[in-house]
């Protein structure tokens, strides 16, 4: 199951708040977070890592897709 959070264009710290709320509700599967700012990418990655999640960052022309999941690197 994949849950998606679109936090593009939201100011600090809303991308992190929305990610945290989604992770709190995530029982299984993967969370996909869409971002379009470096600062938000850094902050969301830091939050997910600090909670023990694995983050894969896909970067494309200033837009970021973060795949966040528990466990080992696929």
């Amino acid at each position, binding site marked *: 199951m994949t849950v998606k959070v679109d936090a593009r264009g939201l100011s600090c*710290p809303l991308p992190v708040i929305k990610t945290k709320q989604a992770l709190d509700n995530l029982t299984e599967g993967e969370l996909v977070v869409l971002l379009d700012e*470096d600062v938000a990418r850094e902050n969301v990655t830091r939050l997910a890592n600090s909670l023990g999640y694995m983050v894969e960052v*896909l970067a494309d022309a200033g837009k970021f897709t973060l795949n966040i999941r528990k466990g080992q690197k696929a």
Partner: protein
Amino acid sequence: MNSTFTDKAPWKDKYPPLVIVSGLVLGIVAAILVKLGNPGNMGFCLACFERDIAGALGLHQAKAVQYLRPEILGIVLGAAIASLAGGEFMPRSGSAPVVKFLLGIFMMIGALVFLGCPTRMVLRLGGGDGNALLGLAGFTTGIVAGVLFLQKGATLGRSYKEAYSLSFWILPILAGVAAVLMLVKSNVFNATLEGKGPGSMHAPVVVSLASGVLVGLLAQRSRLCFAGGLRDMILFRSGHLLVGLVGVFLGVLVTNLVLGQFNAGFDGQSVAHKDYLWNFLSMVLVGLCAILLGGCPFRQLILASQGNGDSFFAVFGMIAGGAIAHNFHLAATPKGVSAAGMIAVGIGLVVCVIVGLTARET
């Protein structure tokens, strides 16, 4: 498309050296600027300096506070250069700019009733000014309230990339032209540099400008934010940005001690008053505005300098707020807070609550 994996936070993510260094440098440079002529505990103050700029532009007539502060121009130029180098210089806007202008006005009014923005609040603490403790308590209270609004869904909406690139050049070009004029003649525009007011007290222009550039460069890269530091600790128990505030405090404290500028107590503090209640309440307002805006006055200036049009409105709201505060006698003086200032803070708090309860994404 690039793909990278991260699976744990390294130590430098938890205690980021760049944030600590940015804070230390800001604190050290601030104390040196005071030694070289800036008002006491006012090496940097976004509120005071943007208010001085409002005066220099003739937007208010309080002769004691009219000076086109080169520190602000330098911060804009430094942040613009750093964001260009880092590929983050990008025009974007659309997140309720008019509301951000309004919140900028009230953030300035709150800061001028306290007599300092959050940056100066920390600098005042590092100079031994006990009155700033009340400000810190108020600021923290405002941040907690703001965080509650965010957790309940408050948002000023999304910003979008703008197609027209001139949008992000306007502020750096304005700052660059003004900086050149200041270097040629320091009393350009409406600057009076008369009397004994804070506006007449300043370090040499070239030192102020260079200090601003240095701090702007570092702060853009490190994301230093005085509201963000406390906010992230409250929200996520993350000290990532808070270490920057600790750096500012330690940097200014030690430098003040070395330079003989440390003066512990509540009495006789430079550009400060002892009205405990209003020191507290005014900074509640600043904290609330900062959270709803997505950053403190310092961070708003950095964001505006890297092309964020909404923060541009917040900064110019602050400049307008500086003019309003002095034209209508809302700003405090070392003697205390005016009735009009108290009423304005009350109105600001009501406006913030209304925004916090009604700003939702549609």
